[in-house]
């Protein structure tokens, strides 16, 4: 019960971060929050339902790795966008025409 509430809280905080942070990197951080919370909830839920620890762990592992890859690509995008437009605020990207 505690894990569920905790993860839900973390996840919604992530959502809040994505919606309110103007800084792109902060948005990515928010995304990380959501991913992490989801992963923990996933593992907790699987185990609590008597899932085999190994299978759950492997699954969570793969999720973790993919999330990391996503974060990396995200960061790359942010950096290049910054270098090209000298802006990091998400709502200012539109102003600069290609």
């Amino acid at each position, binding site marked *: 019960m505690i894990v569920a509430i905790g993860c839900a809280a973390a996840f919604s905080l992530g959502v809040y971060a994505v*919606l309110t942070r103007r800084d792109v990197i902060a948005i990515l951080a928010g995304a990380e929050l959501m991913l992490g919370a989801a992963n923990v909830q996933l593992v907790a839920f699987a185990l609590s339902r008597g899932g085999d620890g190994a299978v759950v762990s492997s699954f969570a592992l793969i999720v973790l790795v993919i999330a990391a890859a996503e974060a990396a690509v995200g960061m790359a995008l942010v950096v290049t966008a910054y270098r090209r437009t000298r802006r990091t605020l*998400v709502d200012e990207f539109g102003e600069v025409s290609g």
Partner: protein
Amino acid sequence: MMPLWFVLVAPIAVALVIAAAGRGPVRYTRWLALVGPVAAAWAGAERLADAGRETGVAAEAVSWFVTQTGSIDVGASADPIASIMLVVVGVVASMVVVFSFGYMAEDASQPRYFALLSAFTAAMTGLVLSTSLVGLFIAWELVGACSYLLIGFWFTKPSAARAAVKAFLVTRVGDVGLLFALALLWRETGTLVTADVLAAVPTLAPATITTAALLLFVGAAGKSAQFPLHVWLPDAMEGPTPVSALIHAATMVAAGVFLLARTWPLFEASETARLVVLIIGTVTALGAATIAVPQTDIKRVLAYSTISQLGFMFAALGAGAWVAAFFHLVTHAAFKSLLFLASGSVIHGSGTQDLREMGGLGRAMPVTAATWAVGVAALAGLPPLAGFFSKDAVLDAVWVHAPVAGAALFIASALTAFYSFRATRLAFSGTFRGAGHPHESPLVMKVPLVVLAVLAATLGAGSWWFAELLGGHAGLAIPIAVASTIIAGLSAVAGWALYKTGPAADDRLAGALGGLWRAAAGAYGIDALVMRGAAASERGAATASERFDTRLVDGLVRGIAWLARRVGREFNELQSGESQLYAALVGAGAVLLASLALWLGR
């Protein structure tokens, strides 16, 4: 025996021929216009002659509308009152046509004139002969249309055009009343053949009878210019004088009385309806008589006199003596058409209609003066002329039925004598006050005058024969006769003597009577009121159409278009390029849908 369908169809055919022939042969084709009236008179006389033997020719009816539940038939047949009316219409129309040969001699569009006259005769005979109320209604409106076309004959004169429209619309108000009377009778009795309707009267509810009778009376009041629908008749004088003589003295205006006579059982069964007719008749008689006194235009004097005399007839009807009313109708047709034709001859001769510009025409136009005198005496009700007998019958009936109304009618007949002799004195004695020098009318105009004068004088004798034919009480009510003669005589002499000094007498009287004189001259402002109402309604309709139609209804439609555009603009603000806004919307959508699913699935 002259077939009825010929009496109806001949004048229409003649009208078409005259119109088609055009101006060229009009001198000859106009004589054709006599065919209709003569045929009518002939047919009427024939039927009256053998009236003793069998009542009416078998009605030739044909069904105009056929439905499973019943059919609306139209037919023609001549019963006694129709035959009499045929004779009246025939004689007067013939005289008017002959008179018009002279009067309209140099008018440019004579073909149209004579064609319309012929068409009018056809319509009038149709009205008289019709055995079904629908046929009567059809002829009724056609008569109104012919009157419209004839009043507006000189349509280049704006006042004539306006008078024609006014006449048509006011009579149309009456016609709508008649239409709904028919609709009510159709609903109650399921048929519109006059005989069947009247046969069914006893079975009808009193309320229905009264409503139907009153609606019929509205139609009659419209056509016979009774108060308050009388405003059109004085203006109808814009039309040529022979037209006024035919339509606005003898035939059309009498149609109202004829209608009530035709549907008499309906009125007989409803006390209240008769009371209304009596009141309206008396009020009109007295009111019109007072208005006629100060009039300066000779034709308007006669117009108000006609309204007044019709008031007498309706009063008699109200009092229950429809035979007296019908008899007065016949005599009135004779002497009033005579007076109108004589006034036409006076106008033709002296070139003016204004009594103040006339004078001394007695010497210049002896025949016209003589015939006018006969007419005026008959109008005033001096014995032994026709007017005396018929007016006496009317006065007797009304006095017996409702003394108050009787007294009012006595006063009205006094006024009648007064204004008729005033006009006579102003027009025919003293010296000519107008420009130019008046001349007597040609023979073709004098003959009708003489014929009508003879009729006006001798018709009185017919009262016994008349009563016996139609079932009224014969004989003369001596006391009434004596009283009316004295009153008529005194006021005639007063009228004659007072105007020794010519028009100046008017000013003295105006001084004496003050406001009353001027009010009477202006017909108590009713006419002005009606005209202002009509003009206001016309302007009202224009602004209403502009405001209601274009703004409200169209506005509504344009409003919807505007709304669509506004909502569209609101939504495109959402595509502002802010990615976070999109994310928020996605989030919101997800939450909503999920909670909905949860809620529904619980």
